[in-house]
């Protein structure tokens, strides 16, 4: 019987570049920015890193294939370096590689770095690209917002929530993330907005307006992990142990079998159930202190509140509108601004979420620091489309929790 990852690995140090439209920086510059911060934070020498993972999604827009770009950027001493890609969960996958390596005992200290340089396409939104020679023959002409927007129509139909109520709750989500982003110096979008502005914005993909969509950003984030014992031997007072790390991939059921109604994420529910079990969490609504979810679009955050079993199914609107997830609410969601405002450099996003939980656990989140001392911090990173995706959930927490 597998014992899971709980408390076997701890975060030794982390770094995160400023996210945004980094017109004058290459991917390499972003990587260095995140890495230098992480290495200083970890308080180790480069030579102590024994293996590294690079997470990036749309590599053809910046670094190209393989792990070599990371190895070259950091001048790593010919150690094993692996590049991983799993849609928008690529950053979480890099983290998983490093954590598993340490947990297995294959190495003592490992590094995970995610990076994306997207603002070289000449237009807003994610790069338009081919999706595989067979897929291109029959996949719908779908963009990311158009794919996720459909959650709203299916959720509305299933739960009898009016389009107006949905729009209002989605707007609340975006307003909240802008508020939070305004307190985050590394965030891409730092302006405050209001619900009317969200609701009256130009439509991108019905029912999404502009402010229902997250920023497309350049950025990088980096984690250095080791065992809790080594962390302490290196003088770390409060390393943040990993409590759970789960991944769930669609198997075609949502896309091809009529058992899925289109209003939720099959993968998120599967990964959440396993993650809570792995972390020993039985009542997530009472035990999770704060969390970051993959709010690529407002509706993704909306349904994810239920898929993570924090809001009851059909009740997300009430929790959202009651401020349950606001920065000063019961369980703050996206206290750093989320993908919405911190930004979404694909390969970096999963690591950026963990970075925020790490800072919050250590009381280092500055102006946006949660007053109540966090016990469990959760990240949810999702890639693909509602009907075929990968979902990654990571829970970190206090030592002994």
């Amino acid at each position, binding site marked *: 019987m597998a014992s899971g990852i709980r408390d076997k690995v701890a975060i030794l140090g982390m770094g995160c570049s400023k996210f945004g439209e980094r017109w004058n920086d290459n991917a390499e510059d972003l990587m260095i920015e995140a890495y230098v911060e992480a290495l200083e934070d970890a308080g180790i020498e480069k030579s102590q890193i024994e293996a590294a993972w690079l997470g990036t999604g749309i590599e053809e827009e910046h670094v190209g294939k393989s792990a070599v770009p990371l190895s070259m950027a950091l001048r790593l001493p010919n150690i094993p370096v692996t590049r991983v890609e799993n849609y928008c969960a690529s950053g979480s996958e890099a983290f998983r590689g490093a954590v598993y390596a340490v947990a297995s005992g294959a190495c003592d200290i490992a590094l995970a770095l995610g990076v994306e340089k997207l603002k070289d*396409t*000449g*237009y807003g*939104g994610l790069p*338009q*690209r*081919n999706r595989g*020679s*067979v897929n*291109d*023959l*029959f*996949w*719908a*002409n*779908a*963009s990311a*917002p*158009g*794919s996720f*927007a*459909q*959650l709203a*129509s*299916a959720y*509305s*139909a299933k739960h009898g929530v009016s389009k107006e109520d949905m729009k209002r709750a989605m707007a609340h989500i975006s307003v909240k993330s802008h508020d939070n982003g305004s307190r985050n110096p590394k965030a891409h979008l730092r302006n405050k907005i209001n619900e009317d502005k969200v609701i009256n914005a130009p*439509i*991108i*993909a*019905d029912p999404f307006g502009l402010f229902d969509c997250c920023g497309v950003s350049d950025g990088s984030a980096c984690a250095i992990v080791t065992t809790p014992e080594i962390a302490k031997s290196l003088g770390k007072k409060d390393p943040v142990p990993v409590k759970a790390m789960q991944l769930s991939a669609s*198997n*075609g*059921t949502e*896309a*091809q*079998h*009529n*058992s899925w*109604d*289109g*209003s939720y994420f099959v993968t998120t529910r599967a990964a959440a159930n396993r993650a809570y079990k792995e972390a020993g969490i039985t009542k997530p609504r009472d035990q999770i202190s704060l969390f970051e979810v993959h709010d690529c679009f407002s509706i993704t955050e909306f349904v994810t509140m239920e898929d993570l079993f924090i809001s009851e199914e059909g009740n997300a609107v009430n929790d959202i509108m009651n401020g349950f997830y606001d920065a000063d609410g019961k369980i703050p969601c996206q206290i750093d601004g989320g993908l919405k405002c911190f930004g979404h450099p694909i390969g970096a996003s999963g690591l950026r979420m963990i970075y925020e939980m790490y800072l919050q656990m250590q009381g280092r989140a500055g102006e946006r620091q949660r007053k109540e001392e966090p016990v469990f911090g959760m990240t949810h990173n999702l890639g693909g*489309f509602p*009907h075929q995706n990968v979902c990654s959930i990571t829970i970190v927490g206090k030592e002994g929790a």
Partner: protein
Amino acid sequence: MEVGILAYGGYIPQSRLQRSEIAKAHSWFNPGLKGLAKGERAMANWDEDSVTMAVEAARDCLADFDRDQLSAVYMASTTFPFMDRQNAGIVADALNLNSSLQTLDFASSQRAGSGGLSVALQVANGGSGPILFTTSEKRLTRAASPLEMTSGDGAAAFLVGQGKVIARLLGSHTEAVDFVDHFRGEGEAYDYNWEERWVRDEGYLKIVPAAVEALLSKTGVTAAEITTFCFPVAARGVAASLAKKIGMPESAVADNLQENCGETGTAHSMVMLAQALQNSKPGDKILVASFGQGSDALLFEVTKEINSLSPRKGVSGYLARRYAETNYNKFLAFHDLVNLERGIRAETDKKTGLTTLYRNKSMIQGMVGGQCSQCGTAQFPKSNMCVNENCGAIGTQEDYPFADRVSKVNSFTADRLTYSPDPPAYYGMIQFEEGGRLMSDFTDVSPETDIKVGMPMRMMFRVKDYDNKRGFRRYFWKAAPAGASNKGE
């Protein structure tokens, strides 16, 4: 055994461009177009071409007919999407026919439609199995040309053979005369036309009577006996003049659909024939004549079998499926008559791997999915392992065609970010009643269509992507509202 028509089908695209809007746009340049500004013309959607329209007419024609019995598929057009790739073969593939089949294209004349039908009847008379004959046209016309006003897009299809014919062929005759009233030379996109008065006096009114009179004399039928006279030319009063000259009753002159469709090029004599059959009763004598470097004339007698023909939309049904388009700019954009800023997203390379396409041909062109022989679950696409989580059997998938199955909308969006020639791009998850689903592009969603979860959808064969760099286009199936809009302005 007598030979004739066993079934008919028609197809007219949903959008009808208001001619007054075309005339209004050009009034500064050619105020004379105002004289043609009445009514509306059928306007193919951006994802329709003569092949996709032929497929729809063929589906309408074949209805519940056992497609395995077909011995040949012919297609006639002067606007084939492919100059060298058999277009009739794409139609046959979309109909999911087996490969033991003769396929052939008829082209190069406004007489290709009538000539193709004539040949199909002759072949069928020789005792082959039933033949599917389709004809379709999507004409390119210059902005501000009279042809832009009078043309329309559309298709017709006929099942031709022996046995229980709904219309028996009494005879046919062709006059071949190299009378060049217009032409389109190699590499040219548009027609070059000569003076209309000459075409009328020396062309229509001399060549057509010769063909019709020869036909009547061959068949021993008098002009007075003709119930319906189908003559496809758009010019006003020509059919009536011909009827008068030949001695056919005035009442026999069939509506040339100029008011609500426009002249569908080489397909138009056949569109009119399909329409005539739809309005006919046993005993009617339908004479159809065409014009194009001569004239084909065919005479049919409607039999009592017409009363037992299974229901179909026909030309009338598709004319009723209508959206009144008032935006002429859209027509210009669909036909590349305006240099539109399509944005960087439109630059995505749409290259098709011909190996990929061939390997997946039945899935893509025929929309054939799979059904598990162990648990009965239907799915698209077919896969090695059954999608049913409680089954998961390997290698149990049997061919399961989806194209003619009705589905319902599960979720949808209208996307203004993704590049579409007709934004917003509508798409969503559709779910088939007997199992199977697809994240599918939608088409023919008019501004009046209020897409809802649960709305019934019907699959239509359409152009998925144009590869303008290489002159290729790939086809796939899209979902269209099944009870599509038929509201007017």
